């Protein structure tokens, strides 16, 4: 009973929190689900694709735009776009590089499934520890690693001041949260259209349904795979910028782990391989986590989230929307 009244009192607050977090989970989840759709492979290095974007975002704010205090108007839009594009490209590029170096050589040799998993974990650890060393003090032989993370501690540039845009039933919704949801919805919509309407998108769906037949029909499989990784990467890239912007946190080497794990969970929840499933799975997971706090307390967040996952999988083993590969 206490649980219900608490949720009732905090309903709008927690809905706002859950929607913001869920939108970010959804954007990351797409990378997992698209790669799975095409290759039946879980890209466990995807959390580091996300991490790269958070690092590039803060580096851009700090070192390119010299942000020391919040700015407004056109300048703010230019700074955000000026950081968003490189962050998305860096994440997309990282995803493509992972595919090229960690997966393609295995695919060419027809390696067993397990090898891909190990390779994924290896790529993930490699990227994490590479960024640990990027504080401007470490060398590989005579080559100094770039000081992208910089020596800690550094101030966290915050280009955007938090302001309340509107209030709904006593819950203030800030401009940053509105931005997260708007950007997420636009990007998810564009992606959905891309996969459903364009030639390349059709290629992705064709390869997901039957790679061999798709190849015989003239689909360039390698190109489809690279596109899939790149598109998943740029979605994670946009998520990375929004994540550090709304939470005001520093980028660091391990930042991708928890969001990556949650996004993977969201993808499974929605039905792995299913793009719309990943979107809704992300939102659902974000909401469940948010409502758990008033109901059971913050320490139960992960327990409840994963109990929900298990229950859903017991009833629908392929996720809420089914493992509809290539939909």
């Amino acid at each position, binding site marked *: 009973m206490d649980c219900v009244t*608490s949720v009732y*009192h*905090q309903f709008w*607050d*927690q809905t*706002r*929190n*859950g929607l*913001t*977090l869920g939108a970010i989970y959804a954007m990351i989840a797409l990378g997992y689900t698209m790669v799975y759709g095409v290759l039946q492979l879980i890209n466990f290095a995807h959390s580091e694709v996300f991490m790269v974007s958070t690092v590039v975002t803060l580096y851009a704010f700090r070192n390119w735009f010299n942000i020391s205090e919040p700015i407004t108007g056109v300048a703010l839009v230019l700074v955000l776009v000026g950081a968003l594009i490189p962050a998305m490209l860096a994440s997309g590029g990282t995803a493509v590089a992972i595919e090229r170096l960690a997966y393609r050589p295995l695919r060419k040799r027809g390696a067993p499934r397990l090898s891909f998993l190990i390779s994924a974990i290896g790529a993930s650890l490699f990227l994490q520890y590479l960024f*640990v060393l990027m504080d401007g003090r*470490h*060398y*590989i*032989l005579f080559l100094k690693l770039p000081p992208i993370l910089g020596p*800690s*501690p*550094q*101030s*966290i540039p*915050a280009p955007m001041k*938090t302001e309340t845009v509107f209030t709904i039933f006593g819950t*203030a919704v*800030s401009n940053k949260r509105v931005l997260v949801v708007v950007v997420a919805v636009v990007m998810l919509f564009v992606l959905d259209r891309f996969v459903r309407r364009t030639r390349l998108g059709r290629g992705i769906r064709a390869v997901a349904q039957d790679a061999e037949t798709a190849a015989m029909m003239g689909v360039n499989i390698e190109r489809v795979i690279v596109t899939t990784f790149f598109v998943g990467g740029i979605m994670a890239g946009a998520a990375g910028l929004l*994540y550090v912007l709304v*939470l*005001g*946190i*520093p980028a*660091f*080497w*391990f*930042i991708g782990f*928890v*969001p990556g794990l949650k996004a993977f969970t969201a993808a499974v929840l929605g039905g792995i391989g299913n793009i719309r499933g990943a979107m809704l799975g992300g939102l659902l997971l974000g909401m469940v*986590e*948010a409502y*758990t*706090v*008033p109901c059971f*307390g*913050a*320490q139960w*967040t*992960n327990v409840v989230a994963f109990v929900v996952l298990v229950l859903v999988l017991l009833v629908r083993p392929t996720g809420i929307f089914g493992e509809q590969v290539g939909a």
Partner: protein
Amino acid sequence: MTKKAYRAFAVVAVFALVAAACSKKTEQSNPSGGAAQKIDVTVYFQGAWTGPYNYLVVPSIQGAQLRAKELSADPSFPANITVGTADTQGSGDNAPPVVQQVVGDPNTVAVEGPAFSGETRASGDSYEQAQIPFVTQSATAVDLAQNGWTYWYRTVGNDDLQGGNDGKFLAQVVGAKKLFITNDKGDYGQPLSQTVGDAAKAEGVQIVGEEGVESTDDYSALISDIKASGADSVFYGGYDADFAKIVKQGVDAGLKVNWMSGDGSVSNTFLSDAGSAEEGVYLSIPSNLGGDFTAKYNQEYGSQASSVPVYAAEGYDAMSVIGEGIKQAIDGGATTPTDIRAGIKTYLDSLTVNNPYPGVAKPIAFDPTTHELAAVDPNSLLYFYQVKNGAMSPLGTAADVLK
């Protein structure tokens, strides 16, 4: 690239990594000079020399190195102290091989550290068995004293001292009426926040919420819950980076409360991460950040000095008592590391409340049975700070400000 080129590249890369790893290994301070008859001894410093938490430990490493350098340069001091690197990156998982290296080094006479409580639990038995004195300057978990380690000593106050006084501080100084207790569910943060809650309750403060949240990035759900609880004050047991996120996101969400945390949050990372949200935040730490030693430290390390030198003075003092032990052992006729180890222990055991070593942070004496830091008034060992204008501003010790 051809297959051959790939292979050549791989070989070069492996060599590069090995070379890089080897070149780091010999990072020791070995001051030159000194009389020829001086005995060479090694005191290992165990803690996070590198890794994501090293900024919490580097100031005490610097303090220890400074003291070792001074002692070795002193003509009347009978030994040359090399500060050995025992780098665990602060993790208990990494400790066993590092401890093995320390125990296996025939020149080891003592260990300063381990810096964190978790790694201490993973290391203590080995040092005890090898009969190597180990003196920590910053591991504050209460249970460390309950292992029956006779070679272990602690030169700071423990978390019970801190938690109990923090609870009183919230009631008496901050004026908390409704307190929300939260922590990172860790070995350090959870017991600390519980002690604070109990102490505050005993002072008549109402506890309106108690929640643990593992380190995460988005604390909005917790903040909404704090807001709904009607708390006027929040205590967080945990580390700086997380506390900074909570304060920042809380202030951002319009939460108006008094914030407080313990020594895990006292760092320049907290100051830089929390930004303008940190103004007015209360902190406690059993380390004197503003004593005379700080000026000396800043002069020695210049731009390398930390702006919040946590446990730097304690690191210096721990090396001082180890050094004094070495001196008395050698003056008493010890020549082998084994004899010097025994001599250091004899000296440390002789430090009592009535006969302390005059450290730069405080007089150093140990409880004869637990080897906890002892003082005439233990409350003089805990310091309170408040963030003012982006810096840690001292409020005094628990003995000064509490009833």
